[in-house]
Structure formats: structure tokens, C-alpha cells
């Protein structure tokens, strides 16, 4: 039960918060030998890939890469509702992959909270609920925050660290 990362996406699909928690090590490719050693473990074929990673957890990517992915997720979220085989459907709520899953909670006001966690994370929804409360407290009640802009409030980081630490059990 590990939380790998949290995203917050605003109404327009802009990524306003992204943090990775535990389970990742920022491994950046270095000269030949070291790069070879690190990549042997992950068996990724070509060494010039921007990042290599250990078996569990997710990669540490650049801010821009996360921004692009958030935009994609925003688009996919809308489409998954439109291609539904039944009359009424929300957008995507859970994306499952072999070694991790993404749980998405969209508020009535259109803000998306995304939890990237191990697949055995049973309380993902309740963790996202706590993240929403932390957002309401440490971001919405902060006079120095402008709506829809990236969040860099120390109060929110502190609350998030506490939530992630508590969610491990």
C-alpha cells in the first residue's frame, strides 16, 4: 500500500500540483559504466533513455513531462465519458496498469485530484478525499494563492506529507 505520487489538475487541464512520494529514485543516466549497471537491473534496452528506474514505483520525470501527461489525462477524462456504452457516465475514475494504478477524483467544480499508487491500495478514494480537504484548507484559505495557478504553499506540502505518511498503513 504505497502512494507513489499525487497530481492536482485545474478546470482547464493545467497541472497545478505534482509530487512524487517514496518508491522512486531519480536515476539520471550518467557515463557508460554506471549507466550500464543501473540499466541492467531494469533491463531497459537502450541506455540513452532519459531515465531509468528501479523495479517498483514510478519514474521521476521533468516538470514539463508531467504537464503534458496531465493535459492528456484531462482530454482522456472527457472522452471516456463520451464513448460510454451507457447513457450516463462519469469520466475515468481508475486507470489500472500492471504495477501501479491511478485513482482520479473530479470535484463538482471540475478540479481533478489524481493519486498514483500501488495496485493493492484499497483506500485510494479516502486518501483523495483527505487531499481535497487539505486543498480546501491550505490552498483555498490562503490569501496569497491565485485560483487556477500552480500551488506552492508550504502549508499544503506539509499536509500532503502527513496524508501520504498516514496512508501507508
Amino acid at each position, binding site marked *: 500500500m504505497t502512494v507513489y505520487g499525487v497530481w492536482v489538475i485545474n478546470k482547464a487541464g493545467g497541472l497545478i500540483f505534482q509530487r512524487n512520494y517514496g518508491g522512486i529514485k531519480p536515476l539520471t543516466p550518467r557515463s557508460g559504466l554506471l549507466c550500464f549497471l543501473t540499466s541492467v537491473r531494469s533491463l531497459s534496452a537502450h541506455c540513452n533513455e532519459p531515465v531509468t528506474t528501479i523495479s517498483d514505483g514510478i519514474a521521476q520525470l521533468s516538470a514539463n513531462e508531467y504537464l503534458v501527461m496531465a493535459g492528456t489525462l484531462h482530454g482522456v477524462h472527457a472522452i471516456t465519458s463520451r464513448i460510454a456504452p451507457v447513457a450516463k457516465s462519469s469520466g475515468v475514475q481508475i486507470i489500472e496498469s500492471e504495477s501501479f494504478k491511478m485513482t482520479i477524483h473530479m470535484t463538482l467544480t471540475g478540479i481533478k485530484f489524481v493519486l498514483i499508487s500501488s495496485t493493492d491500495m484499497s483506500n485510494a478514494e479516502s486518501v483523495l478525499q483527505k487531499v481535497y480537504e487539505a486543498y480546501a484548507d491550505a490552498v483555498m*484559505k490562503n*490569501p*496569497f494563492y491565485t485560483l487556477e495557478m500552480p500551488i*506552492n*504553499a*508550504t502549508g499544503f506540502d*506539509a499536509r500532503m506529507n502527513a496524508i501520504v505518511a498516514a496512508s501507508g498503513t
Partner: protein
Amino acid sequence: MFGGSSSGAAGSNPASSSSRFSIPAITSSSLSTGNTTSVPSPTAQGSKRQSSYLSSQLNNLALGGGAGAAAITPPLTSIVDRPVNRMRGAEVGMGAWAFLYSAIVAHSQSRVESIVDLEKRLASLGREAGQRIIALQLLRNAQTANLKDPKREHRLIPILQYIHTQIYRYCFGKAADGLEKSVDGDDEYMLTSNQPPLTQHISLPRDLSQLSCEAFTAGLVEGVLDGLEVPARVTAHTVPTDQYPNRTVILIKLDQVVMDREAGLGK
């Protein structure tokens, strides 16, 4: 309280300290530029609605007929008739306070140029609130104690302790975490609180790291001290520790008048 006479129906000028605050026309001294042009009411529709409202009001005031501007007596029940303790012990949600204070800080920020001015504005709001709080508390102390000899602190240390416990509990739900005399001088005292509740949701951006939104609390303490005849300059300083990143010290710099009086009163 807010200065100036209030024009309540009672007509009498309520005693300054124990009356409710009322919003007088602003005395000319405090405003340099005269601005008497009356601004056309933007919500024309608002005033139209009002006139229809007026007619209904006029009828029940049994003054029917005549243009809306007939000489009607001001409101029948005035503030003096309302029970002062109706809201005693009443509470509102912390969210309401947090959003109000956040809006106050944001609004003040847009009207000032520097951190010092922002803190001054917040402090002035705190002072207005503090003056009314001490007035209300003294009134209630008098009401609970028998009215013949209402007890009121007059010596410095008991006053500071009264603020440290009673006033802090009234405003913040719990007493301050510490009251100490500062080492720098006899006329400086410090009230510390590890987790000030009123500004718990605020995170300062890097460029405003010197700001302390607890300036409101400093102003409040100054207003209370003022109500207890202890003039002082009170400022708020964030003194973070690992455990308490928002720990705040309210520094009280007492006026010389107070020091002389204390010396005079002796032990």
C-alpha cells in the same frame, strides 16, 4: 468606539467605552480631500426596487402619502434595545473566519505598497476589534461580579496575565503558550503562541517571508491594553521552530507613562 457620536434613535451619546460600535459619518479631521459629489447609484434597478419597497414600508409606518422622503423617524428599535449578551458564547465556523481573514489580507494587500503598511492595516483592524472585546469583557465581568464594586485589573502584571489567559481563551479558544518579560528591557513583554489558530491556513510566498499576518492579533492586544489604560506599541514576529513553523511572538513595548505609573504604585 469608532469615534464620533452615533446618531441612534436614543439620541443620547452612549458612553464611549461600553457602547456598541456604530458607524458615524467620518470626522473631517481624518480625511483631507472633500468628496461630496454623490455617485449615481449604479444599481438603478436597485433604487427602483427600493422605491417599491418604500411604499410598503411607509404604509406600515402609518405615514402614507407624500414622496418617499417624508420626515420619517429613524428605526423604532435601536441597537441599545438589543440584548448585549445575545451572542455570548456564540460561535461560527473556522472556515468562515479563515475565508474572511484571507479576503481581508488579499484586499489590504491590494491597497498597500509595503509589508509594513500591510501589517499596519491588519493591526488597525485588530485594534478596533480589541477595543470592543475589552469593553464587552469588562461589562460582562461587572455583570457577573456584583455591580457595586466591579473588579478590574489595574496593575501591569495581572493585566498581562489576564490577557494571556482570559482574552486569548476568548479569542483563540486557548490561553497563550507563554508570557515572558523580554531580556532587552523592563518595558518589553512577550506573549508567545505556538500554533496561532487565526492564521493557520496562511502560507507566505518567498517574497513576503518577513510578513506576519498575526499583526491582527498584535493590534487586538494593543486595543485591549488601550481599553485597560495601558498604552503600548505591540508587534507580531514569527519565530519558527522545527516543531512549530508558525510560532509567533507578540512583542509588547510599554509606554513610558505605564512604567512611571508602575514605579509610582510600587510594590
